[in-house]
């Protein structure tokens, strides 16, 4: 899995940080920071959930088999 974030779409509510704090963080101004663009398997479920609830559709996932 590879994660691509679009800072311009991020509206900074921080849902991704709550769900997957090892993968996402927020800058001081609230915009998302990607800590790990290819997280280990055990975090995939949380990352998928974060992408689904992100209100700005700012988290895109490239799933590779």
């Amino acid at each position: 899995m590879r994660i691509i974030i679009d800072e311009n779409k991020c509206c900074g509510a921080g849902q991704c940080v709550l769900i997957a704090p090892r993968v996402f963080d927020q800058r001081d101004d609230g915009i998302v920071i990607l800590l790990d663009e290819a997280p280990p398997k055990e975090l995939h479920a949380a990352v998928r959930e974060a992408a689904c609830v992100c209100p700005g559709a700012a988290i895109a996932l490239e799933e590779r088999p």
Partner: protein
Amino acid sequence: MSAELISPLPIARTCPYAPPAEHRRLREEAPIARVKLPNGRTAWAVTKHEHIRTVLSDPRFSSNRRDPGFPSLSREPPPASDLKPLLLELDPPEHGQVRRGVLGEFTVQRTQALGPRIQQIVDEHIDAMLAGPRPVDLVQAFSLPVPSLVICELLGVPYADHEFFQKRSATLVNQQNTAEEIGRAVGELMMYLGKLVAAKAQDPTDDLLGRQIRKQRESGAVDYEDLVSMAFLLLIAGHETTANMISLSTLVLLQQPEKLAALQADPTKTLGAVEELLRYFTIAEHALGRVAREDVELGGVLIRAGEGVLLLANTGNRDPEVFGNADELDLERGARNHLAFGFGPHQCLGQNLARLELQIVIDTLFRRIPGLRPAVPVETLSFKDDATVYGIREFPVTW
């Protein structure tokens, strides 16, 4: 798909824990339907989870609450206002610019720093309840003052002014008050916030207003008027909403003691429980509106430019296609894809603060007042069925 709801909104609930049956019928039979509003106009009611997310993320729908087509539960047209539009009312691209200006104040990290103060505020109000007479109205003694003081903390309202601030903000949310009384309280609060902002300009303390002033100075001129309206918006958006969630959550947990016991046995479950309580109650059932800026086709229905759309999010949050046993309060559900804070670019700015307040309240209230219970039969409680934001008017409790 052209079904109409004959009775105008708002419709009285038969169960305080579920949106009216008519809303559910709409979701099942006509998920995008015309409904009548109290002012005689019509709007589109959207009741499916997927459609609500679509509308709330589509920039062709506007948040301009001053547009005559914007759906409102009020009989009167919105009072003419010379106030600049609030963040809540802005559309892109202005919306994103203004929101990014304050976003940093609401990060997960910054919000968590308020935890110890919130705990203190909650404890002080429980101390006062325990020392006072029984029964007591939980709404006045606890649910309303706690979030109002948290907003004081956030903004940096000095301690000496807390009582002034809290009295006025309580007047604002009491539907029993006349428009004139509410108008006076709004005027006094705006004047107060104006003075507060001026004081922070002299001495920019380490709080939201002080930091905003310092930041704006670095990048040019400070817009004092904007800071006053932002402070006011935080009060109107974050006070009664959180208060209603506190009262409703307390009631339902008291009524389902086995669920409360499970929570108390394992405090790591509280945050998940808060998420489910938010979904279950979705108090913004009547609060999410938009107006179409152009013709939009949605789920086979043509919404014309200028028509209003109401997103019935509580009904959407009971959509069986998204949530199994959706009408059941399942504190271990672990679902976060609910619409209690809206969706899209306007999704609640204060959501992490609201989560933290509710978490601290639930962890503290039942532990410190173990015998807490309703002081009147629950059937006699009065719920805000017809209000923009759902809640309980008065909740006498004893212990």
